[in-house]
């Protein structure tokens, strides 16, 4: 792709990598949080609900700064993780963490909605047939919420692709390391003559977002057809 400059190409590749990892790594937690919110009742439930949704309503800069405080090299979590060789500060992994946190509420909402649509009577039936709770989840609940899980994952991926505020606050804007597409567009717009590069990235951002939406539609129609047995 020679119509993209090396710096632009780098930003696109990095964005895809960051968004993909952010989505895949947060998916198990997203399913767990959605399950807890949809099915369990426990004392701290409103707190968990608030915590999950906080990144959606807080200014992204605040989320980014809190991440920096917690996961920076001198942060209380960052320091501990550094001991075992995991570093987030000013690395692409940090960009992925920021994107995952920002996309988490969207993912959890989509999965939770599909969980609430699953009839608990089917899970009871599975239990009477000998399936323990974990097997009920794997063989009945998970297949039935698959459309919601995929929709949530794709939404989260699109959100992660576009994340800017928290990312730039947490891991800055280092080309090749933490400069995702939005950060790169921002950087190009800061220098004279950067508009053409910025526009090319804008076009790519639109194409990726559109492709993600179409893919999610296509998958959910197919999955829904299989699940409903129609």
């Amino acid at each position: 792709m020679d119509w993209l400059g090396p710096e632009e190409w780098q930003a696109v590749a990095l964005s895809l990598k960051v968004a993909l990892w952010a989505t895949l790594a947060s998916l198990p937690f997203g399913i767990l949080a959605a399950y807890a919110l949809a099915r369990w009742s426990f004392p701290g439930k409103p707190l968990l609900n608030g915590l999950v949704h906080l990144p959606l309503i807080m200014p992204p800069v605040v989320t980014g700064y809190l991440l920096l405080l917690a996961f920076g090299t001198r942060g209380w979590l960052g320091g501990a993780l550094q001991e075992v060789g995991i570093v987030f500060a000013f690395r692409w992994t940090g960009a992925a963490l920021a994107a995952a946190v920002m996309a988490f509420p969207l993912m959890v909402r989509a999965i939770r909605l599909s969980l609430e649509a699953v009839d608990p009577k089917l899970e009871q039936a599975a239990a009477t047939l000998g399936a323990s709770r974990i097997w009920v989840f794997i063989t009945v609940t998970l297949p039935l919420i698959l459309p919601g899980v995929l929709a949530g994952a794709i939404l989260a991926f699109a959100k992660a692709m576009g994340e800017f505020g928290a990312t730039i606050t947490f891991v800055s804007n280092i080309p090749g390391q933490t400069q995702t597409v939005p950060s790169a567009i921002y950087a190009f717009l800061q220098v004279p003559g950067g508009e053409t590069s910025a526009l090319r990235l804008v076009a790519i951002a639109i194409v990726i977002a559109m492709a993600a939406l179409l893919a999610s539609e296509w998958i959910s129609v197919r999955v829904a057809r299989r699940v409903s047995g129609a």
Partner: protein
Amino acid sequence: MSLSVRLRHAFDAFSVDAAFEAPRGVTILFGRSGSGKSTIVNAVAGLLTPDHGRIELDGEVLLNTEAGLNPPPHRRRIGYIFQDARLFPHLTVRRNLLYGRWFAPRAARHEDMDRIVEMLGLGRLLGRRPGHLSGGERQRVAIGRALLAAPRLILADEPLASLDEPRKAEILPYFERLRDEISVPILYVSHSGSEVARLATTVVALEDGRVSRQGTAAEVLGDPMVMPLGVRNAGAVLEVTVAAHHPDGLSELDAAGIPLLLPRVPYPVAARIRIRIPAQDVILARERPAGLSALNVIPATVESIREGGGPGTIVSLSTGAGRVLARITKRSAEMLDLSEGGAVFAIVKTLSIAPEDIGGER
């Protein structure tokens, strides 16, 4: 093979306090909706934890609230056939059927898939998904799925209640086959006198969460003091033998020496069958009537006359064939001058016995 249940459970406006024993065969929990039947089966299945209770299956304690013993449903190995089938929509019929088999202990997998498929007529449906099945087909798959999980007991919670009449007629014979061909005991919830008459080995009548009577179908349905569904639905059960099939579409039955004519029954000559005679459809006469269109006239003795608050009475009759109940008005009872020990004739129209009230071994 026996199940022993004792439990107490209080809901907001209603409480259940019941104890009964279910021997092998089909035990029917019989009563109106809201009489506590579903509470009991859900406690047996482990889907509901009663306030107090002890449930034993073949000497193994399934539930003992005193000792804090309440294993989860998946450890109980109890097959449950729900009213709404509850098939897994994302699995084919074949995989629905095999679902429980996978979790059952290897040594217990004695039911053969092919035999169950053949018995329930599921061969053509195996590749389909539940979304493409009719209500009756779905319920047949649900029966097979419960059987193939190698259960020690089968629970059926009004499995026919959400089906229309033709579907009921389609499914009921499968439960008769289950009773006659499978050794697993069945606890079956119903509010239908026909189902009790056709299926029950034992009946446990429930009223307002209490057991009001336990016995055979003939004992419970023939007891004028126990009417879990009210007088309108009362009807006694007679055990009869098929004597002959006549060319005019009628079958002749032998009720301990008394001949009865019914619309042709789908059972061979010499088969033992049960028929339920709705109390509403029995007419009484002091003398053997002549010039009457009704074909069945049974000599009887009045055992008891039970008066209720309304204009009707339930007359309990002892006949050579067994007990028959008749529901007539108080005025008729006075007009006929009925008294206990008096001789009467019970008249039953041939066509008043509905096909769903006739059942037996095929």
